[in-house]
Structures are given as C-alpha cells and as structure tokens.
C-alpha cells in the first residue's frame, strides 16, 4: 500500500530534466519493445512472407494468418501442453526451494560465526568424492552415502580435532558463488550419470533439485546484501525478549526484506524457466521443458521463425504476468524507513 503523500514530497524534476529523463526512458523502451513487436507479428506471417523481406504492419503490409498459432495449439496440442506444464512446475518448485534454503543460508552467513577448518573440509570432500565415485560405479546410493557419512563422522571426530586453520564466512560465500563458474557443458554429462544411477532421469524432481542447487549461490549472495541493510536493533529487541533464531528470521527479517526476496525470486524463476542444456539431458520424453521446444524449431530446414515466435510468446507471458504483479512489492521500500522512525 503506497502512501501518496510520501511520494509527492520528493522534489520533482525540472521540465528540461523531465524531458531528458523521458527521452532516455522512451528510447530504451523502444529498443526493448521493437524486437518483441517484430517477434509478435512474425507469429502471424506465412513462411513466404517471412522470407521475402521485412514487412511491418499487419493488415497494411501483409495479411496476418493464424496458421502458426493453430499448428502449435491444435496440431501439437499435447506436445505443447506437456512441456509447458513441466516448465511451470519445475521453475516454481526450484525457485521456491532455492529461495527458502538460500535465504536461510544467507541469514546464517551474516549473523552466525562459522569457522570450518580446512582439514575437515578436505576430509569431507574426500568422503563425498568416494561416495560419488561409488555411486557412479554402480553401488546402491543409500549404501554409498551411509558408508561415506559414517567414515566422515569417525574421521572428523578423531583426526579432525587436530586441524587449526579455518575459513571465514566470506570464504564460504565465495565458494558458493564459484560453483557457478563452470559452464553447463562441462557438468552436464556427470550430472546425467549421477541421476541415471539414482534412477531419476526424465523426472521433474531431478530438474527441481538441480536447478535449486545451481541457483542457490545467487540467492545467498543477493539476500546477504539485503539482510545486511536491515538494522540490527529490530532483531535485537526480539532476541533480548527470548525469541529463537528461527522466530526472528521468520517474523522479522523475512517480512522486512520483501523487495529483495521478490526480486531474487523473479531472477531465480527466470533462470530456471529458461534453462536449456541440463533440461535437454535430464529429460527424455516426460519431463521436457519449453526451452527445448523453442530450440527444436531449428531443424534441418532452418529456423521456423513463425512457430518459434509463438512458442517464445507463450513462454514469456506467465513470467511477465508474475513480474507485473510482483513489481508492486519491489517498490515497497517504505517499510524500512517507517520502522526506523
């Protein structure tokens, strides 16, 4: 809910300033909208009209047809609906998961002191690697994980005590974001083999888990900054009153950082919605998602622009609708100032 009085007290731009502002804004809006307009009218053109040369205005330069739309919605009914539903489920599921886990981790990284010792980390990595290799070689996953967990617990309790050198929260955060450095090309086949051994290929769960895990670092980094702008006094009051960390996190921190949460959610949603390579390999028939259908329009005959445009448009509509709905929340930065006073 916006307080109209607050906005109007900000000094307005002078007329030349306004003009300049609108020129810039309008210019960039044109740059953004023109390709989208072109995309939209291409979906109403026949192949001949697309190949012959650019025509710009429907009804004036060319006669629009709904052939492409009919093909996608009627001829390919099931083949369009299934990927669409998959995309919605996978994207929403993975973004929610990533947001929950990531904001908790972000909160922890700025409120709690962690000092993981280098040696213990090395031990852990070794045990995980051993488990992964075992799974890759065919051991049942449950056995491998249990064995590795046991090994690690024992080793950490005995040898682990000796290690001194530790890492800081900053290092943990940097490690997290460094997981995004390797391009998907390098990780797709190992991930494929991993899920194959777990018998989870061609399932939406595999995609949800993978996307959540790969987008977690982004959530952590973005939410750390938002949480850090919250004054400590608010939480301190609750802590002094005896609230647990969960309580403080859930009732105070999260509601106050809504703009940041929403922005991050949108970003992560978009990343999952549009991801291509992992979706291609982790799905075979049932779990295919929309980006595959878009890329698939480039076949032996060259890109079929008309079908592609239809698919791209129906792909972005829900995300845009969500963005419109959530934009209101992003602009609610007032709550922080209000509480401060």
């Amino acid at each position: 809910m916006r307080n109209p009085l607050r906005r109007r007290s900000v000094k307005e731009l002078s007329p030349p300033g306004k003009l300049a502002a609108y020129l810039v804004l309008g210019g960039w809006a044109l740059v953004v909208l023109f390709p989208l307009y072109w995309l939209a009218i291409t979906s109403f053109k026949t192949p001949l009209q697309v190949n012959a040369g650019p025509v710009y205005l429907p009804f004036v330069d060319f006669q629009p047809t709904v052939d492409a739309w009919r093909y996608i919605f009627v001829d390919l009914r099931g083949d369009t609906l299934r990927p669409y539903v998959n995309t919605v489920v996978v994207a929403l599921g993975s973004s929610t998961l990533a947001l929950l886990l990531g904001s908790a981790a972000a909160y922890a990284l700025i409120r709690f002191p962690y000092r993981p010792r280098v040696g213990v980390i090395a031990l852990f990595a070794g045990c995980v690697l051993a488990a992964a290799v075992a799974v890759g070689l065919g051991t049942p996953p449950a056995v491998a994980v249990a064995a590795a967990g046991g090994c690690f617990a024992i080793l950490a309790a005995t040898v682990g005590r000796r290690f001194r050198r530790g890492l800081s929260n900053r290092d943990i955060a940097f490690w997290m974001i460094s997981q995004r450095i390797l391009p998907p090309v390098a990780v797709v086949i190992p991930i494929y083999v991993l899920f194959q051994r777990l018998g989870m290929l061609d399932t939406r769960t595999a995609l949800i888990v993978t996307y959540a895990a790969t987008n977690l670092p982004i959530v952590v980094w973005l939410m750390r900054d938002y949480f850090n702008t919250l004054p400590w006094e608010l939480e301190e009051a609750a802590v002094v009153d005896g609230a647990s960390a969960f309580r403080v996190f859930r009732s105070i921190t999260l509601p106050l950082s809504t703009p940041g949460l929403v922005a991050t959610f949108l970003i992560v949603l978009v990343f999952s919605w549009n991801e291509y390579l992992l979706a291609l390999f982790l799905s075979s028939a049932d779990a295919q998602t929309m980006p595959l259908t878009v890329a698939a329009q480039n076949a032996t005959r060259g890109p079929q622009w008309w079908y592609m445009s239809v698919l791209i448009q129906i792909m972005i509509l829900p995300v845009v609708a969500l963005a419109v709905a959530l934009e209101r929340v992003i602009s609610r930065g007032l709550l922080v100032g209000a509480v401060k006073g």
Partner: protein
Amino acid sequence: MAKRPFPRWALCIVGMSLLLAACGGGDDNQAAQDSGGPKHQGVEVTVLTFTGPQIAEPLQRRAPDFGRATGATIKVVTVPFSDLYDKILTDVATGTNSYDAFVFDPQWMGDFVPNGYLEDITDRVKADQALKWDDIAPFFRDFSASYKGRTYTIPLDGDFQMAYYRSDLLKKDGVQPPATWEDYLAIAERYHGKDLNGDGKADYGSCIAKKRAAQSYWMSWSIAGAYLQSEGTSQGAFFDAGTMKPLVNNEGFATALDIYKRTTQFAPADELNLDVGDTRGLFTSGRCALSVDWGDIGTLAIDEKTSTVQDKVGSVILPGSKRVLDRATGRLVDCDPTRCPHAIDGVNHAPFSAFGGWSGAINAAVDDKVKNAAYDFLAYMSAPDQANEDVTLGKTGFNPYRISQFENTDLWVKAGMSKTAADNYLGAIRDSLQSPNMILDLRIPKSAQYQGVVLDTALAQFLAGELDRDQAIRQIESGWDKITDDEGRDQQKQAYAESLNIQR
C-alpha cells in the same frame, strides 16, 4: 500485518499446475491401443528423432494406424536436431536405453555399430516381402544401410545433393544447365545482380549454405567430390584407402576450395551466415539463379505457401569435372576412359550422398518383443504403400530413395508438379541414384569430429579470410591426421575400407 513473501495465490498456481499435470499430460496413445491384430498387443515402442515437422510428422501421423493394425503403441519423442547425436549416444553408451528405436543419420553408424549399439537386421530384411528391399536404390541398400556387409538400418529417405537452377531463366537465354563447376560459376556470374523475380531488387547468381556448423562442410565436398573420386563408390572420396592419408593436400581439393570461395562473389552479402533454411527460402522466393541442395527444393518449390517459383525450377546431377585427381602425384589430370569410367560426355560426376538419408535403426539392448514391434513399425514406414506417398509431400522431409518412386511420375503430378517439372526432377534424381560413382558420406568412428569440427572450422576460417587456402588445407590435414592417430591408424583404415565394402 506484514505480507508474507509467498502469496497464497502462488501456492495455488503450483497446486493447479500439479493437478493439470496429473490429468493433462496423459497418455495420448491410449486411443491407439485398440483391439487390433494381436501381433504386438501391449508393446510400447519409443522412437527418438528430432523435432519436425520434417521426419517426425510422418512418424507421428502413421503411428496410430500402425497401432490399430498391430496393437502396439508407438511413442515418438523428439529433441532439437543439433543435439540428436549426443542424446542418442549418451543414452546407449551409458546403458540408460530409454529409447527403443531411432530415426537418425546412418552416417553415424561408424560410432554406433562397432560398439554394438544397433541391432543387426540383415535376416529380418531378407525375410520381409512387404518391405520390397530390392526396390530400394542399390546405393542406399548396399552402402547407406549397411556396415561391414550387414544391414543395420531401414532407409526412409534418400539424401544426396543436386544442383538447382531457374529453368525459366536458362530456357529464355538458351543456356544449358551446368555440367561442370566452371559452367556453374559462369551461369552464376551471368545472373548475379539482375532482378530475377520481378520485385525490382537485385538478386543473386548462386545461393549456397555456407554458415559455420551448419551444412557448409557437405557443400564443400559436393564440389570437391568430382575432382577426388572417379572410379566408383568404393574408391572413396575422403582418404586414400591404403594409407589413410586425407585427400586434401592436392590440386583437386585446392581447386575445389577456390571454386567454393568464388561462388561467394555471386551470392547474397551475408551468405557466410546462411544455412540451408535461408538459402531454400531465398531460392523459392525467386532470388537465386542457382543453388546446391538436397532434394527438398524440388518439393518445396511446388508448395504455394512457400514458393513463388512453381514450375520454374530445374534440377540436374551435381556438376562435375573434366579433370580428376591422380592420387599418386596429387595433381589434376584429364579424364579418359580408364580414369573416369563413369563419365558422362567426358565429365566425371560424383553425386554426393551427403548425410546419408534418414533411416530407422533399433537399439540392440532392448527386449526382443520391443525389437520386433520396432522393426515392424520401421518397415511399415518404409514400405512402398506409405513411403511413395510421403516422399511427394514436402512437409515430410522424405526425399525419394526407391526406384519405384522416381519411375512413376503420377504421384508427383498429383502432388502438384507439372509433368515437365516432375520429369526433370525425377530424371535428375535417377541420374544421381543410378550413378556408380556416388560418394558415400564418411562413416568411420569420429566422423563428426573429422567433418563437423576440423573441416567445418577450417572452411569457415578460409571463407572469412582468417586463413588462406594453403593454410586451410594444412590445418585440415593435420587435424584429420591427429584424429586418425588418436583413434588408431590401423583401426580407422580398416573401418574406412569396411564402410566402402572394399574386399581385401
């Protein structure tokens, strides 16, 4: 009361989607499982190919009919074309086996067959009367579908390249269709810059798909082939079968490269970024005088939705050369009856069966019941009753490969070609298919690396001016030698000889 970050409506959407998924994405093939002949009752076959409509459409269209007749359920799964090879190979090599059959490119057999991924169907094919195996053109029967003398695929489509020209223009000016590559260049030069389709804009002499990582490396070999191979398919056009030396560091290939680059002068400004979809679009909207392509232009040209040059398109066997390579010296020498036993009017033609023609193959690792059903489906698709109709339809992407398909012009006339156009198109196809000097596309292990990576990159760099001709040749030669050595020179030599049915 502070608003929760996740409004309830978001949860509703998730809930609804899950609900939709449960009901909506149901089994579309339920209807096809009628009580038909009990031959394959209850068997489900998953066929993988790339997203169409080409190739996938006829499979999807005919699957219910087949299902009704035999009780089997055929599920056609599609993936993007550029990733088909990786998907199939990871699926079979890792033992996932989520696909029972593939409609793919037989050129890839070099990677599949030696590792036992494909089912040997020689005996099935021999025993199958309905398939009319002998009706399939010899080249596709004996070379394209076979490896080491055994049959592994059922051809559904015949791939080879031809040259296309604007018959109306050439007839008006009394010009003969190009017989050699010099003719091709002359015609291209003649028509470049003129308005060929009456829209007032200057058009182009020649349109060839030169885009990197698209079809460029086949186009280049369509030109080079006539210089490199003259004694029949078994001579091979990529390597010297005795030493496994690439046939690139010689005058024949060098001449071909020069011709390839020269066609760019009579082409659209961004030809280096055009793939076959773009060039076909340009040709069928009347903007090119010449093109080199697979059989698709013939069927695309008669479709009013895509073409303004109905009945103005002629096709001819790939232009050839009057001089061929002497492999001992590396120089070009004139054709004579011994060197060019298959020459036509003194010109050596080497039609290039680029890519090989989409074919169906069966995963060797699945159940016998499924294999039987899969075989029957693929044989059904290839049988003359179905195939002869499908090859006349442009949208199916199937080009002629059976002798009966190009002898009977009625089907083509019914599909919309005029009699003269059908005679011309089918005549060119017949000349190419019946040529004993057809080039078999490279099908040894790692063929994708030889052509798709080394050759293609060097060609792109040569055309863009990053490398000059001799640098490009050296880069291709050393790249190919490295792959051969990495794989094992003897293994590759043997695979190459086996693919060409060279008896030793």
